[in-house]
């Protein structure tokens, strides 16, 4: 007989996780499950885009202009090629372009949120724990930034960055500039929440104990306070992700984001917008649906996460 059979009382970690309140909650929320499924599907599609996509829309040399404006599932008038979701004005396969475009949208979204999170948590922890002038300066800066709409801040940063980068690097820099622009416009949420939670935690006994045994400020913040303020941060991160994806789409839609030769979902929607009257509905419809599905499911997932992690809302 194996060991496992003799010790049925101690389940594996996975099984433990599966039985936790968190997972129980998840298994009993259809919205959460559907959202998670959609997000997972889209993220996997984006990650494995080079394997799934029939064409590489980012390689200009592979495009055939004659394939432009092909309707979904119908052969092209000139070349006879068939595309699942049709092609755009430059002859790019819409399905492949959506997959690749989603990579940019998701990458920018995740990276911007990660950047905002690191910045926000650091400043929030310092503000909350150190207090005094440091706190005043950080939090007033945050207040000032909150008075501007995030998209305006992002556009400002994008504009300045575009002005100072040499023109030959602009295409390659555009994505990183987007990340920084969106990240910088979004750190305030994290900083405020972390500061609030830090103020609550910093006088608790375990922190006092740590201070008594002489641990440094940095260690206390990182090792003791940080783990205890993370759960609200996770919720904000999820909602921020949806916002960051939309912010990226908005910037690209306005023509200040991803370069036209490397379209993200927002760029695709902008391209499609020109053909609203002329009957090429597929150029705008499919990228829009994808963006909608992505943003909505991430948002719903964030909502569910907020409920699940908030003990006060537990049934």
């Amino acid at each position: 007989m194996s060991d496992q059979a003799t010790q049925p009382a101690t389940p594996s970690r996975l099984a433990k996780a599966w039985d936790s309140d968190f997972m129980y909650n998840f298994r009993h929320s259809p919205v959460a499950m559907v959202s998670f499924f959609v997000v997972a599907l889209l993220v996997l599609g984006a990650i494995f885009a080079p394997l799934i996509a029939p064409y590489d829309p980012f390689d200009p040399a592979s495009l055939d202009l004659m394939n432009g404006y092909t309707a979904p599932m119908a052969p092209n008038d000139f070349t006879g090629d068939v595309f699942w979701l049709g092609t755009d004005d430059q002859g790019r396969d819409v399905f492949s372009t959506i997959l690749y475009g989603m990579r940019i949208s998701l990458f920018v979204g995740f990276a911007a949120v990660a950047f905002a999170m690191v910045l926000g948590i650091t400043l929030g922890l310092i503000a909350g724990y150190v207090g005094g002038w440091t706190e005043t300066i950080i939090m007033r800066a945050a207040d000032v930034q909150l008075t501007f709409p995030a998209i305006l801040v992002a556009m400002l940063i994008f504009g300045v960055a575009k002005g100072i980068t040499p023109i030959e690097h602009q295409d390659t820099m555009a994505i990183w500039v987007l990340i920084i622009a969106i990240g910088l416009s979004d750190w305030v949420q994290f900083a405020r929440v972390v500061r609030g939670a830090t103020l609550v935690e910093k006088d608790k006994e375990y922190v006092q104990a740590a201070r008594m045994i002489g641990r440094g400020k940095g260690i206390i913040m990182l090792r003791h306070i940080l783990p205890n303020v993370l759960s609200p941060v996770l919720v904000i991160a999820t909602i921020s992700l949806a916002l960051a994806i939309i912010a990226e789409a908005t910037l690209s839609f306005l023509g200040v984001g991803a370069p036209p030769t490397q379209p993200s979902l927002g760029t695709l929607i902008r391209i499609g917008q020109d053909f609203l009257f002329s009957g090429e509905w597929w150029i705008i419809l499919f990228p829009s649906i994808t963006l909608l599905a992505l943003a909505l499911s991430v948002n719903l997932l964030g909502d569910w996460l907020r409920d699940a992690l908030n003990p006060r809302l537990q049934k």
Partner: protein
Amino acid sequence: MTFKSTLLATAALVAMPLMAQADTLRWARAGDALTMDPHAQNEGPTSALAHQIMEPLVMRDMTGAMVPALATEWGPSADNPNIWVFKLREGVTFHDGAEFDSEDVLFSLNRAMTEDSDYKELLASVKEVRATDKYTIEIETNGPNPIMPNNLTNMFMMDKGWAEANNAVKVQDYEGGEDTFAAKNANGTGAYKLVSREPDVKTVLAANENYWGNGEFPLEVTEIVFTPIQNAATRVAAMLSGEVDFIQDVPVQDIGRVDGTDGLEVRTAPQNRVIFFGLNQAAEDIAGDDVDGINPMSDVRVRKAMSMAIDRDAIKKVVMRGQSAPAGMIAPPFVNGWNEAMDSSSKTDVDGAKALMTEAGYADGFAITLNCPNDRYINDEKICQAAVGMLAKIGVKVNLDAKPKAQHFPLLSNLETDFYMLGWGVPTYDSEYIFNFLTHTKGEKYGSWNATRFSDTDLDVKIEALASETDLAKRNQMINEIWTVVQDQQLYIPIHHQVLNWGMASNVDTIVAPDDTAHFKYFKMK
């Protein structure tokens, strides 16, 4: 009362309510005029707006024919072949009431010859302008200039007194970012007065009740509201919803939709405008590429290869939806000097292009930035994007930088671009205009739009000589020789000749002018 006068009186009575009714024409196009200063920018939409307010001595009507405007007759002087004499129209007043006379013409022409003027190339052959009496002007050229009047069709007349009073004697330095009174205000003799102007937002013009042409032109439009709408879909939506009556640039993809809508119509005509790419061909290293020490485009084989990589038929069929004519030379078919053999010389040959690139030592290609306007020509940015894909097939990695025309054109004048898109219309209908601006070495009097850095002194001499060559057969021979050099050197990469699509509501009636300039005084309102 005779029968005839009764009839006239009745006709007048019937006509009265029609005349009294204010016929407002709401006009939209993609781009606004860059400035109101008539000599600062020689650019289509800029002079199109100026034409409503100001007038030249002679102009082209909606069919492209030369007709009298502020000059009633003109001709070479009987005594001296180097002199053109213009008789001015009498009794004309500017919008502010000032009288128009030869002093104003003298002032305006001299103003257009100053350094900041964008019209100086057109007057490069002028030695002196003289006012011999109140209504006679003599233009003396260095040698006879057979096409002098052709050069004056966009040369607007300003009031000397108004310019002096408003500190507008000097032409606005547009590229230098200067702003002047004349850049925002205008005082002309034209059929319409400038009522209000917000650049890029809205410009309102009202009929000039003291216009000299009252009774001579239909003048059925009494008020013009001009709104630039850059976004193609928004422009079409405005047309479909009845928000505007007349748009000058129906997007090619929406022609069917607009034409098929009740109460709207699209009229199409070939335009006197060719679209092409310009290339920096100086040998010095350029900043916008990834090749060190030399400019790859200084090699004519590279330029030829880049031209061979462009599939003009695909651009016509897909990007332009059939609304263009592929070009092999940068002269529209309307122009003296155009010939079919050169215009059909562009052939797509990707393998041949690759071979040329290898021969030139760029088998792996190179990277370069393409500057492109996005609100000037029909589908300008989409053409550039298509070119990115086509050039990639021969290894030229193009980084596309598309900007509104107000930011794009200064790149050319300031030589800050190495690879750019430009379109050229030819108001004089003669090749000399193209050579003066685009082929001659860039300098004080000539070559202001030549951003190719191309410079050939022998050719410059020949171009300058065109202005005074009176033997037309010999002149055409010289034009042909210059074109041969331009073609052999692949100075430019021609793309196509544009086709105009004017959309109008059913109450508007006009023919399509080949120079894309709507003269509203000719418009009929139903």
